[in-house]
């Protein structure tokens, strides 16, 4: 698939392209793009309260492809939502891309998401009355990007020839790739993906993962991907294991597998 064009908005002051494997910079410490310190998240009150996160400490460096791995109910999606300023933490410190998310009001959260975050969800949820290009352009307009950026984003995910198709005429994999294009057209420093292959078959899922890896490698976008699928974790630079609302381990992966070799 074609790489991203350089016409995207530049967050170069925040992002660094990942070092080539084997270079002297490969193991140099990179500044964290995500920092969590003793972060808690509780839902509900009293006897019905649920502690989804119970004091998470975590740093994710910029430019990595990180996977949050854990069983259902481990808190990984909650963690992703907090990092993406979809929900506020109950307590603790949470700094993402240099912004302290604790205490942000709704308007500030929206601005933060617009300028710093791209989201890809399991159910792509494209707008059915807009074509693929229009779905991407709708988000591009939020940040003042234009048609050419949107077309480039679609080209980057290999769907330039499907730009004028409505979602109903696209396969599940194609819809998810449009969702990826929609997320990256803003050139966000951080791309958060919640089970992006959960609704897809193996081949399509591999395509989507490859696209995400491309975004990370070529533009240095930090990707944090949530999954319960052990196999997908093998393509990550860093695997964060979670269980019962806590980070149980952070495992660097020196030899991440190409997406096409990830099999489940």
């Amino acid at each position: 698939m074609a790489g991203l064009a350089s016409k995207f908005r530049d967050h170069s002051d925040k992002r660094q392209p990942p070092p080539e494997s084997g270079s002297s910079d490969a193991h140099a410490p990179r500044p964290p793009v995500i920092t969590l310190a003793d972060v808690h998240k509780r839902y509900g009150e009293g006897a019905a309260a649920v502690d989804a996160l119970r004091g998470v400490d975590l740093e994710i460096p910029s430019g990595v492809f990180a996977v949050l791995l854990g069983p259902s109910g481990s808190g990984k999606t909650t963690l992703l939502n907090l990092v993406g300023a979809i929900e506020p933490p109950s307590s603790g410190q949470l700094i993402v891309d240099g912004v302290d998310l604790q205490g942000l009001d709704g308007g500030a959260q929206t601005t933060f998401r617009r300028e710093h975050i791209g989201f890809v969800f399991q159910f792509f949820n494209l707008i059915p009355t807009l074509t693929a290009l229009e779905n991407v352009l709708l988000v591009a307009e939020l940040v003042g990007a234009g048609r050419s950026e949107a077309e480039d984003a679609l080209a980057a995910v290999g769907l330039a020839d499907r730009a004028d198709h409505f979602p109903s005429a696209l396969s599940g994999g194609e819809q998810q790739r449009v969702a990826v294009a929609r997320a990256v057209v803003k050139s966000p420093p951080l791309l958060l993906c919640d089970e992006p292959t959960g609704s897809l078959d193996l081949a399509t899922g591999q395509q989507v993962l490859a696209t995400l890896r491309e975004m990370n490698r070529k533009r240095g976008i930090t990707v944090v991907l949530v999954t319960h699928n052990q196999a997908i974790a093998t393509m990550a630079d860093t695997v964060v294991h979670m269980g019962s609302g806590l980070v149980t381990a952070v495992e660097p992966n020196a030899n991440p597998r190409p997406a096409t070799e990830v099999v489940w």
Partner: protein
Amino acid sequence: MNPLRRKLFREMRRHRGQFAAIVFMALLGTALFGGSFDAWRNLQASYNQVFVDLNLADYTMAGVASDKAQTVAAVNGVATVVERDVAETGLDIGGHLLAGRLVGYPLGQAPALDRIRVDTGSLPDGPDQVVVEKHLAGAMGLAPGSTLKVALASGWHQVTVSGIGVSAEYLWPAPSRQQILVPSDEWGVVFAAPELVDQAPSVSHQLLVGYAPGADRAALDSQLSQLATNLGATDSFSRAELASNAALKEDMDGFGEMSFMFPMLFLGAAGLTVYVLLGRLVRAQRGEIGVLLALGLRRRAIVSHYVSFGLVAALAGAIPGALIGVGLGDLVTTLYTGELGIPTRVVNFYPDTPLIGIGFGLLMGVLAPLAPAVRAARMSPGEAMRATSVSVGEISLAERLVPPLRRLPERWKLIVRGIGRNRLRSGATVLGIVIAITLVLVSWGLLDTTQVLVDQQFVQIERQSIELTTLGPVSNSLLAEVTATPGVTAAEPVARLTVGLSTATGSYGTQLVGFVQDTQMHGFLAPGGAAVQLPASGLLVDDALRSKLGLASGDNVTVTTSDGSKATAVVAGFVHEPLGAYAYGALPYVRQVLGQQSVDSQTRSVMVRTDGAASQTVRDALSKLPGVVAVVRSDSLKSLLDQFMGLFYVFVGVMFVLGALLAFALIYATISANVAERSVELANLRASGMSAGQIGRMITTENLLLATIGIVPGLIIGYLVSAEFMASFSSDLFAFDLVIRPLSFVAAALAAVLAVGLSLVPTLRAVGRVDLGTVVRERAT
């Protein structure tokens, strides 16, 4: 509890806003049906009871000689014929002169027909005692023992009130079908001994006819109408055509129409909402339905489950609505009969009314959800459970018709295409807007029309300030004295002749009014509104008589006067007047046709114009002139009309509020369903950085566009419905020509936009409160 039933109640709770809207519409529809249907039946029963209690005549002939009574009695189906005399004259009550009618009532025994019920006091026991009809007594503060003067041919004659009575002929006191609205302090009815009535000027002999039980009323009415024409009657009318009954019947028919219209409107809107809501629910629950079917649940259980939603909503509204309707019917009957002074009030409990109301509700509750429920049951489980289920997208009609629209920013494309995304739902929103505009236009059209009617009648047509009635023919000296009265700017003699107009097609009793050739007292408006002059030769006849008598300009018409003489006049043209159906002619022509002496003896009115200041002072001065027996101010009739309109305004206000509530409920239900369907897409946009405010503005713009789409058909349909509504009130008594002022159209359109705006408030608040973290994980439906 059965899990499916539990699911049902939880879904009602989850969609409580829309559920409440449906219940509310069903409740209103059923309550208004019950209230108006029962009121209609109670009023019919009340009137009928009065007619039975007081033996109201089935048919009346005026101006028929006594020797014709046997001819009438011989008609098959006629059981009773009673003769009496009636005279139009003047009354002097404490110095206040007014017009009055003396009705002959035998001493010592009640007549076989047209009895009176004496509520206070007793029947007269001598010719110097009278019973005063209750409306007049109330207006003039009369009681047994009060005195008043009656203008007889010999002059004023004092009589004593023996009692205050009620007559079935004057439940609504009106001198004739042409004069339905007359203030009770300007005209009233007095029942007196025949010996007294016979001394009054212009006595008319009447035959009152009673039918045999079981007689064919319609056939007899027709037969006697023809007979009356043959016998030379100056006027004849059936019970239904009696001025009082004709006026009251308009109101009663209105209740009857409303009892049909309201359930159609409200229950129809509720049904549409149920259909839209359940369609959305079924779509959202495809996966669940698929699983249930796969697990072996019977298809009829699925149908029953979704139909139950509509049924529960319908019954939740219809049952309390039916109960409220019972009370509402009683209340309306009580208020109405009290307001109009109907002497007998019949308030029955009609057990079939609430049952019919609940039946309407049940019908709506079953039919409305049926299609979506059957659609759900027919799904193939595998198809239903498939993950991807995306609405088919397409370029909007607007973009296809106007290609430059395709270059709109994506946010605007989202809005424009959102309108066509679910056509049924958008149609329902537009329908709500059409209903809102229609109800506003009908209400305000009523107001505009009646305001124009009043202006037309009392400014353009009736130009006199005061009308005097004299004991004898108007003399030159009297005319000179009237003209010389301070404040009087013009005075003209006017002849008012009670006549029958007849052609081969039929006959009609009315007044032939003779004016001086270049009268300043009356404006003549042709159909279409153009002013016409009173012709020197020929009559101007009201447009209402064109079809009644089969008349055209240039036709001859037979004029029969109160003394039975006939003459032929030419119809020179037609006039169109809001109140009454008169014939007009220049005095010289009328004299030529009917004879100078006959006309001059009936020239007992003087119309007066004043300089506008202190018309009561002028009235008082004119009352003192010799020979004047009644003085009627035009503005007192206008005040009566304004009072009458007060009730109307209440009715209009109620209609307006109901319409607004109905439109709000329907539009709210469809808009909230629309937004709920897109909640996941919208949450994804929020996650991408679009603010709640931006999303709110998109939703608002889409729905305001829908409102705009609904405005034009709404205004057109509203106008047509208003015209139909007005036409249903029109008759020879009233000509309601629909007038809707331009500002009323603008106001109706704004009201629709306001209804949409208000409907959006709860929905937009919900959009702002959505739990993003939960919603973004859901699959869009």
